[in-house]
């Protein structure tokens, strides 16, 4: 069994990204969709950390950006959950189809 290298990590990142995208596009529940978005963000984080670890070991930029992304993801989750709560209050559902009146 060999040591895991950059390609393995990039494969995990890409897999996570597409799982996230798939979830975002197919789930009807807004909470699930939010979780899928988090998956996408985390896949990006993995990429950053991996590139940092294997290509520029003497620098820490990738790690810092990852910390930023985590912070932003937390803020984004707070906003998204607030929106979802409001949607639930007005429509009594958190099905994404209920938000169709956005087109008006």
């Amino acid at each position, binding site marked *: 069994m060999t040591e895991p290298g950059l390609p393995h990590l990039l494969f995990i990142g890409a897999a996570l990204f597409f799982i996230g995208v798939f979830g*975002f*596009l*197919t789930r009807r529940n807004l909470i699930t969709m939010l979780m899928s978005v988090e998956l996408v963000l985390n896949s990006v984080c993995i990429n950053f950390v991996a590139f940092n670890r294997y290509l520029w070991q003497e620098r820490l930029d990738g790690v810092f950006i990852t910390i930023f992304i985590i912070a932003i993801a937390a803020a984004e989750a707070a906003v998204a959950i607030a929106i979802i709560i409001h949607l639930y209050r007005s429509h009594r559902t958190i099905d*994404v*189809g209920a*938000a*169709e009146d956005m*087109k008006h």
Partner: protein
Amino acid sequence: MPDTTYLYLIPFLPLAGFACLGLFGRRFPGQTSGWLATACIAVSAAMALSTAFGYFSDWGREGGGYASLQPIDVPWLVFTEELAIHLGVLLDPISVMMICIVTFVSLMVHVYSLGYLKGADRLPTYFAFLGLFTFSMLGLVMSSNLFQMYICWELVGVSSFLLIGFYFSSPAAVAASKKAFIVTRFADLGFLIGILILGEGADSYDFLTIIERLTATMDPNYAAVMAPTFLGFSVIGWGLGLVFIGGMGKSAMFPLHIWLPDAMEGPTPVSALIHAATMVVAGVFLVARLFPVYAVSVPELLSWVTLIGVFSALFAAVIACTQTDIKRVLAYSTMSQIGFMMFALGVSGYGGEAGLGYMASQFHLFTHALFKALLFLCAGAVIHAVHSNELKDMGGLRHRLPVTHACFLIACLAIAGLPPLAGFFSKEEILLAAYQRNHTVFYLALATSGLTAFYMFRLYFNIFWGQGGATGHHGHGEGGGFMMVPLVILSMGAIGAGFVPFGQFVTSDRLPLETHLHLGFSIAPVALGLAGIGLAALLYRKPSPLPGQIASRLGAVYETVYDRFYVDELYQFVTKQVVFRCIGAPAAWVDRHVVNGLVDFTGNTALKLSETVKGLQSGRVQQYALVFLCGLLLLGLLLMYIF
């Protein structure tokens, strides 16, 4: 020359009256609006008369004749160094004479209106419109260039339109005002094109410059404008001809006369001011203003002026003999008298003895303004008393309306041309001028003159003699002092105006012209006038079956004349069948199908396009995200494989 900058006040005082009454008229109680307007015009009239006095006796003199002065001249539209339109005042004998006539008759009409329209509705509006008219007419006669004149010319048309339609609740008045406006506007189109052509030919719109350049036969440029162009007329010929068409429209010359009789739907004092004394002579004034150019450059056009003038004079006189509406008779008589003025200009030459016709025409304009205003104001007094325009409702009024009766008689004698009243002198000069130039015109004019006496006295006997009409005996007596004073003042004018030595003041070359009265020459017109009066007395002084018998004997001829030679019907036919059908209907079709279709097509296309695009905005978040992702991938692929 003294300081004459006050001259601009003469037109602007009535304008100030108009603005004041137009804006705040409703706040003036009772008659005060009328008093304000009358005060404005009275000051104007005083200034105009003092200007005339100063001009003719003192500072207007120049080398034995009179000068053309331009005391006020303000650049307005400056296009190039050469071509600029100025606003200014041109003082020469005819404009000085005209400002006197306009302000004086306007003052008389204002005073008369105070009595005539006492207690009427919309009095401030009425006086405001009168002020607007007076301003425009004064502006017209004082203009120093063609464009200023054209502006005032149109303003005069507008105020005439407003005043004819003053009783706007009557459909006849509304129709008449529209008719007057459209017919004169149609003629003004000719005037405008004429102005542009003349301006092109002379490179200036200033009257004095135009006259100087277009009569300079020695100048090399002159040959260019005189060269035959379209249809063989020269540039000047076209310009002056079109300008004359404008004059024909305003002055109600055949065949553009149809609006004048209908214009009588307006209040009677308005008819006296606008449709008898001042506005309708604007055409004569226009030809007189450009007369040197007509006479020197295109004398053949003057024979057209003569032809139209003499035909209109005779044509209107014949119709006037059969009409039964008192104001319509007077309207046709106005048309006939303007015809006299026109053909007098037509038979005139420029300068010296040959210019007799010009002087006679202006003289007749002057005397006619006085006695025709008087006739209309008397007619107003009669209508005021019997509440009808129809002759059959009148009769035997000489006891009830003694002052009006006397004034009307004086005016009738004046227009019939009996000595020593005003009309005699001016008509005599016109006939003499015609006799010297063209005998056919002279005989036609002589016949018209006899007819004039006949129809005027037909009117006179029908109103004041004979038996009372059907509704004659329960009306009022004479109007109050406001109505009587102008009548008396104007009748003094109608008696005395002929003694003015007019040839000393107003001539074609502004040099004095000695006029002689040839006693032998006067016999024929006076005898014909007396014959006309005698015939009228015979037929109408006492109720008699004769007029009816004559009318039925003449049968179809009488009917044709009574129906005004069916000119109105011809116009109706032409407008309805030719203009509406052949021009109006196709134009409407093009508008409805081509223009409108194009607009509809644009709108419909945009609508359809939006229908197709609007499906994209479904409101489904996931669909948006998918599209966004696909776009992103596409962009990524592009970046990877192309760049």
